[in-house]
Each structure stands twice: as structure tokens, then as C-alpha cells.
């Protein structure tokens, strides 16, 4: 291997090792340390400079105290479960909202489609924080939605939506909608129209042709879209902290508070390690599905 090529590989490699992998090892290490009222607020239990003796020493005092603590305190269990629940429900809702839009786009006249595509991508480039903030004004008690509903006479007194889980669902559906629409649209767009014609010639109505042909063929896009919404929703922090209430438990928010408010770094690190363990399953499944998809397209 010539030196130039080695350099080309080494620079990004070293960068990622130093700023991605090493930080994880540190998180893992701190999650196994004890809390200390000092700066930094933990006792390092691994002394690398002591070499082999240090490692032995470390293994002997290795303690999973913080992990045991996570299982004992209700808060963490509930936070993990409710993050899972919120992520699952909002992924499903995003699919319900996103599919018809993707379907409509795929069936729109050819000359509209670049514009529609741009309209879907545009919110993605707009600040996430601003898009979440926009809902704060809409969902509050004297907000736009309540004013509108009161005006139509559908309700007689304002609904409390802001600072509840409902607001969190709305926020996740709204901000992650483009991630659901785009993969579904790209599979629907490639769909061979003659299949639907064949189905109709063979006696299907349009609706049954949709259920029997379009829907099964759009499966790869639906699965990709669901993963793209579910994975980031699980560790979401901004949406629950701005739209959710004090009883909205999401693990990203718990980690943040554990770190910034309680200054309990070892527990925050342990929460991070468990969250990662939780995410590995969907991430690996997603990767497999993407690989299968690429194989199929070859």
C-alpha cells in the first residue's frame, strides 16, 4: 500500500476512532464508576497508566451498581417503556398520514411531481426546533387550534393539548413526516402501472387492486419509512421537552435531566448504554432490510 493511500485511509479513520469510538468507551467506563461529589463528579475505576495491575484492579472493583440502580428505580423502567410506546404509536400514526400523501404524489401528473417533491423536502431543511416551536403556539389553551374549534362550535371550552402526550405524537408525526413520505413515494413511483391494469382486466375493482397489488409492492418503502421514524423518535429529546408535559417520560429527556439537572454522570452514562442496547435491534433489522432491498434491485 503506498503512503498516499494509507494517508487517505488514516485521516478519516483516526478522526472517527478518536471522536466516535473512544467517546463510547469512555461512556461505558463512566457508567461503571461511582458517583462522587466532585469535579468531574465520578471516581474513575480504571487506571490505564498502571498497566496490567491497573486492569486487574479495575476488574476486581468493577461494579454494575448504576445498572442495578436503573432496574430498581421505577423511573427508568417507565421511561424506557413509555419511549417505546410513544415511538411505536407515533410511527404508526406517521404511516397513516404519510402513505396517502406519498400515494397521491405518485399518482400526480408528471409535471407536478418535482414541485411536490420539493415541497416535501423543504420542511426537512427548515430548523427542527422551529417546526416544533410552531406547534407550541397552535396547541396551547388559547392557541390557534382551540380558537378555531371554539369558533366552529365543536367544543365549548378549550382542550388541553399542549404539555400532554397527544402533543408529543403530533410533534413527532409532523417533524418526521418527510422521512416516511420519501421512501414510500420512491417505491410507489417505480411501481409498474401495467400490473394494476392487469389486475383490473382480471376483474379487480380499483380498491381491491390497491389492497392486492399496490400495498404489497410498497412494502419495502413502508418498512424503510417506519424505521426512519421509529429509530430517531425513540431517543427524541426536543419534542417531549417542548410539547410534552412533566408526566411525559421519554428516555432522551431523562438522560438530559440526569446529566444537566442531577449531575449524575455515571447514571446518565448507564442510561445511554441501555438506550443504545435497545436501539441495536431495530438498527440491525433496518440494515438487513436495506441490504436485502439492494440485492433485490440488482
Amino acid at each position: 500500500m503506498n503512503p498516499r493511500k494509507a494517508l487517505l485511509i488514516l485521516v478519516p479513520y483516526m478522526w472517527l476512532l478518536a471522536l466516535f469510538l473512544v467517546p463510547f468507551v469512555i461512556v461505558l467506563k463512566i457508567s461503571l464508576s461511582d458517583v462522587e461529589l466532585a469535579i468531574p463528579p465520578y471516581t474513575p475505576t480504571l487506571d490505564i497508566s498502571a498497566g496490567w495491575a491497573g486492569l486487574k484492579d479495575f476488574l476486581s472493583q468493577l461494579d454494575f451498581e448504576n445498572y442495578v440502580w436503573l432496574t430498581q428505580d421505577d423511573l427508568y423502567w417507565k421511561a424506557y417503556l413509555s419511549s417505546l410506546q410513544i415511538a411505536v404509536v407515533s410511527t404508526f400514526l406517521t404511516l397513516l398520514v404519510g402513505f396517502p400523501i406519498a400515494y397521491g404524489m405518485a399518482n400526480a401528473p408528471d409535471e407536478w411531481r418535482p414541485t411536490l417533491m420539493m415541497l416535501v423536502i423543504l420542511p426537512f431543511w427548515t430548523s427542527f426546533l422551529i417546526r416544533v416551536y410552531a406547534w407550541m403556539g397552535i396547541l396551547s389553551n388559547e392557541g390557534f387550534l382551540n380558537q378555531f374549534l371554539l369558533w366552529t362550535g365543536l367544543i365549548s371550552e378549550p382542550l388541553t393539548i399542549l404539555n400532554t402526550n397527544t402533543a408529543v405524537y403530533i410533534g413527532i408525526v409532523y417533524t418526521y413526516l418527510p422521512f416516511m413520505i420519501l421512501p414510500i413515494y420512491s417505491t410507489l413511483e417505480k411501481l409498474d402501472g401495467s400490473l394494476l391494469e392487469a389486475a383490473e382486466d382480471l376483474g379487480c375493482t380499483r380498491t381491491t387492486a390497491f389492497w392486492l397489488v399496490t400495498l404489497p409492492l410498497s412494502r419495502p418503502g413502508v418498512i424503510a419509512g417506519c424505521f426512519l421514524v421509529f429509530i430517531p423518535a425513540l431517543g427524541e429529546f426536543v419534542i417531549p421537552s417542548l410539547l410534552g408535559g412533566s408526566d411525559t417520560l421519554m428516555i432522551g429527556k431523562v438522560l438530559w435531566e440526569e446529566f444537566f439537572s442531577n449531575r449524575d454522570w455515571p447514571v446518565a452514562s448507564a442510561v445511554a448504554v441501555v438506550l443504545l442496547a435497545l436501539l441495536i435491534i431495530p438498527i440491525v433489522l433496518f440494515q438487513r432490510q436495506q441490504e436485502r432491498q439492494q440485492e433485490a434491485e440488482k
Partner: protein
Amino acid sequence: MRRLTWFNTVSLTFGFAFLYVPMLILIIFSFNESKLVTVWAGFSTKWYGELIRNEAFLDAAWVTLKVAVASSTAATILGTMAAHVMVRGGRFFGRTLFSGMIYAPLVMPEVITGLSLLLLFIAIGLDRGVFTIVLAHTTFSMCYVSVVVSSRLVSFDRSVEEAALDLGCTPFEAFRLVTLPIILPAVISGWLLAFTLSLDDLVIASFTAGPSSTTLPIKIFSSVRLGVSPEINALSTIMICIVAVGVIATSVMSKRAIARQAREEKAAMQAA
């Protein structure tokens, strides 16, 4: 078979209304006279004036811009290198680990990335400030750049590059004169993506920022936590407009570039 049935029309109308009405309401209320964001009290641009006089916001905007330019430029260079390694590097020791480290940050929750980087900076005794935010942003956005650039690298004809090498170019010249012009659109979109990600990021910046390096999202978040304010609406409106103009301009430009390319190819075919 394209059919715009009533169902499609309805779902498109409602879908795009859902995507755009919230932002529209946000923009409308930035011109509201009243301090109450939800009650209309007449047209006024006074919140824009307040915003321009608010030095904390201006400082934060300046910090954000510096971070975004520095980190997206570094991320584009590193990401393009990484893409080149992934697509053209062949086999080398630790390739699986390398590709894992490229893809993992894309799906990593921001809280974890932020926490781990902060713990690293503390462990090595690096003072937190603009520099640490740049390091953090470069790390996660280089992965996005690398994905964008490698998809372009995969699809292009390698023989052109080999021809340049056969005709006496050094590998670097071949890259600069042949490869780079071809992958340039992807490199530019990678840069834009990295730039936007950096402008947007709240969570990772909150972990890695020091007391004197507040970025705009951190500033917005801390004031929004206390409730809605028309000044934030004004700020959001400005940011939405910049993004809209940028996205529309780039899409028009790329459409023109594609059309020009098609024309040139056609002309070349006719000449031949």
C-alpha cells in the same frame, strides 16, 4: 397509469396543508402587534426591530454561522475522503469497523453522541467552546457527506479515471481534474447538508458548548422553554425564508444544469 382521483386530491391537499399551515401561522404571528402570540392585534414589524437590537441573538447567530461554516467544510473534506476510501479503497485492515463508524452516527440518538463527546472533551481536558462544537459537528456530519458522496462515486464510470492515470496524471491530478468535477454536485449537496445539520443542531451543541459559545438553537431553546414569544416568531420567519430561497434557488439551478448537460450531450452526439 396516473390517476388523480378525488382521494388523491384530498390527501395531497390535507397533507401539504398539515406540513405548511403551522409554519404559515408562525410567520403570520411574527407580524402581530401584540405581545400575545395567539391573539391578532394588527400588523406590525416591531418584533423584527426588537430582534435586530437584541445583541444576545446576534452574538448567538454569529457563533452558529462560524461553527456551521467551519464544521461543514471540514466535514466535506473528511467525508469525501471517507467516501473515496469506502468505494475505491479495496480491502484494508479494519474495513468493517470503518464502515460501521460511518453509518452508526446516522442512527445514533443525539443525546448519546452529545454525552459521549462531552465526556471525551472532559477526559482529555479540552475547554469547551466554539472549537469543541466544531469538532462534534464535523464528526457527525462527515458521515452524512460520505453517504451522499459515495452514492455518486458508485454510479460513475471508473474507466475515465483510469484513462487519466494512463495518460500520465498522478493520482491526485486525476482526482482533481477528472473525479472531482464529476462528483462535485454531490460534494456541494453534502456541504449544504452538513451546513444545515450544524445550523439546526441543539442537542449535541448543548452538550459540547461552553458558557461563552451559545449557538442560536441553544438560545432559541432556552427562551422558548419559557413560552412562545413574537421575537422568536420573527427569527423563525427569517430562517424559514432563507431556507426556502436557498432550496428553491438550488433546485432551479440544478434543473438548469441538467438541461444544459442534456443539450451538450445531444450536441456532442450530433457532432460525432
